[in-house]
């Protein structure tokens, strides 16, 4: 009870203090000559937010880059050793390869499936559409760890002769095959694909909702015009609908791509990176929290940051182009 009151007081006090801070700063600036007041005022209001970003985002990022050149306990410089050690270790090469595979597969499949569902559901009756969309949207509401736990049970394997509690193996053994420990099969990265299924399962709902809205926004007269001109359904879809919703496709693609780069929970819960399924975020977690190696963990984050920068840059440019076109 005291804690709740304390928290409430802190919130009221904190918000009040923030309000007062702005109020006081504003008053101070107003005391300056007119010319300076106009110059400084925007910075006073944006400045606090900028300072917060600097403190909580830029400063840690810079620290991380610096620490990536230091040893495990951040007590001595080691130059590029963290990077060379990581990049030459077979384990980390597999990790990087898996991450690339995730990037190549998950966003594309998520967008394609989402678009397919959005288009097809559009043709169902209102009731059918609602039902389908709700069902496909549902997994989005499940947390990553929850989803991973559910799918662990689906992939669960017991030795032959024991009752199979995993859905996949129950079906598989009913068909007369021997049970397979699915998550350990790394031929052609099969187990990584099984993990990707979980992420796709969770993300398709998100992709579907945005794309469905976009598909519905396509003006009907453009579709009718194409039909009158004798275009078939496939041509209409690819040549009329898709170009008009391309902006949304890119947005969804990039959002899912960033989700994939940060993906952690699914792999951590389901395999912890064993059986050649490791991805970069899990590796980072293990380096920092299990191995206590600040240097390597920082080096991994720097590499991840470098990988995300082009994507974000593209997104910003794309966003600007769209704004300009409007």
């Amino acid at each position, binding site marked *: 009870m005291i*804690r709740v009151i*304390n928290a409430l*007081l*802190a919130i009221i*006090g*904190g918000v*009040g*203090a923030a309000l*007062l*801070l702005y*109020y*006081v700063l504003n*008053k*101070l600036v107003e*005391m300056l000559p007119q010319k300076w007041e106009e110059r400084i005022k925007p910075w006073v209001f944006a400045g606090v937010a900028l300072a917060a970003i600097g403190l909580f985002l830029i400063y840690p990022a810079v620290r991380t880059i610096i620490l990536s050149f230091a040893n*495990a*306990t951040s007590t001595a410089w080691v130059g590029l050793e963290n990077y060379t050690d990581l990049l030459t*270790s*077979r*384990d980390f090469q597999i990790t990087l390869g898996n991450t690339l595979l995730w990037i190549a597969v998950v966003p594309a499949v998520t967008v394609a499936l989402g678009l397919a569902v959005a288009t097809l559901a559009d043709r169902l009756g209102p009731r059918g559409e609602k039902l389908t969309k709700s069902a496909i949207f549902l997994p989005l509401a499940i947390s990553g760890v929850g989803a991973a736990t559910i799918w662990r049970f689906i992939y*669960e*394997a*017991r*030795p*032959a*002769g*024991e009752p199979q509690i995993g859905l996949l193996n129950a079906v598989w053994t009913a068909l007369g095959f021997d*049970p397979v*420990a699915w*998550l*350990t099969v*790394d031929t052609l990265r099969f187990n990584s694909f099984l993990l990707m299924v979980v992420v796709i399962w969770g993300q398709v709902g998100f992709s579907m909702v945005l794309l469905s809205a976009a598909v519905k926004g396509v003006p009907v007269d453009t579709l009718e015009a194409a039909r009158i001109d004798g275009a078939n359904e496939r041509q209409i879809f690819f040549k009329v609908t898709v170009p008009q919703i391309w902006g949304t496709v890119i947005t969804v693609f990039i959002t899912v791509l960033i989700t994939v780069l940060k993906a952690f929970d699914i792999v*951590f*819960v389901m395999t*912890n*990176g*064993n*059986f*050649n399924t490791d991805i970069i975020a899990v590796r980072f977690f*293990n380096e920092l*929290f*299990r*191995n*206590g*190696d600040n240097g390597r963990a920082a080096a991994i984050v720097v590499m991840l940051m470098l990988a995300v920068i082009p994507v974000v840059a593209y997104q910003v440019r794309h966003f600007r182009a769209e704004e300009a076109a409007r």
Partner: protein
Amino acid sequence: MRWRRLIQGIAVAAVAMLFASACLSESGGGGGGGGDSEGGGGDKQIEIMYGFGGDQSKGFEQAMAAFEKSSGITIKFTDASQSFDTLIRPRVQGNNPPDIALFPQPGLMLDFAKQGKLQDLGGMVNLEQLKTTLVPGELDTGTLDGKTYGVPMSMNVKSLVWYPKKAFEAKGYKVPTTIAELEALTNQIKADGTTPWCVGIESAGATGWVGTDWIEEFVLRYGGPQKYDQWVKHEIPFTDPVVVQAGQEFDKLALADGQVFGGRKSVVSTNFGTSINPMFDDPPKCFLHRQGNFITQKGFMADKARANLDENVGVFQLPGVSATDKPVLGGGDLAGAFTNDDDVKKALEFMFTPDFKFPNMAASSYMSPHKTFDVSQYPDETTKKIAQGAYASTVFRFDGSDLMPGSVGAGSFWKGMTAWISGQRSLDETLKEIDESWPS
């Protein structure tokens, strides 16, 4: 006029700030405990962090409740059993450690000791006296450069092979006294049409540790205690012939085709806790399972077997090279202190008394690390037998992977075993990679 309003504003802002910071410091102070105070009186509040889980956590809390009552010290129990090593690390790095931590893995504890984060227990408790009652070797585990940073407050015994007593005896199998006899028994069971071993190493984020135990058992047996100690300290490389031999023996005995229930592939996806249970099927799907004494806990061993442990379940110590060679591999939770004040001292002294125990002996499968402990307090003959075996052992060695640096003992060694057993790496590759991962 303008100035007055401004000053008013600042005054109100200052009061508000004070108000907010006062709130924060109040809630922060409760959790922080004694801080860095050296040998102070304490504030009748300590925080203990531990990684038991389940009934063991309950047992520990019950045991300490008696202490709270008699001493008037309030204990904040922080159960980190989900993932002790990843939970305590950020606490220590963030300069917000608990007052006492019960480390299931001394390797992590020694990491902290090296960083100077832990208190030297020499000045806090009577080590000389503890030396006379503890199982030999237990105290060395928490010692670094002559200073003791951790003292065991519980014990577990790992070198145990379990078997389904009735079926085992009905088949006329005999308990082996040497590794050669164990191999012969394994072959005999195989010839009778059953896979001899049940092995499971899946343990969520800690998958692989059971595999490391097997390697340790055989390094201790083939290399002897001295070689074992050298290996644990990395004075001999991970690729040393004795480690290779240990891996090959494990492979031959319990991983090769027909040796293990479900086959080698299913070992990595079978949970360690329940992997013993196919031996209680009728007919048994396997006859042998190597695991520590904690396997008899509820939730691990099947209830039908636990119902009458002494009658249903047999156990023998994993034999050595010769019949007289009986080394024991074990573990335990080591108590280390981050704070040095009277409250912490009292709590440690309480936990280190030779008759300290968890009140729920049966449910928690608690075992005392003191050889003077009255064994009649153990709930069944099986536990009594295991404890007596450990108390009488001349060579007792702590679980080696728990002593290695965290990045090996809880990192590359676990992962390496998993990759090797699942067939993703050869034994030589695995040992080489583990050797390379050793922090310089």
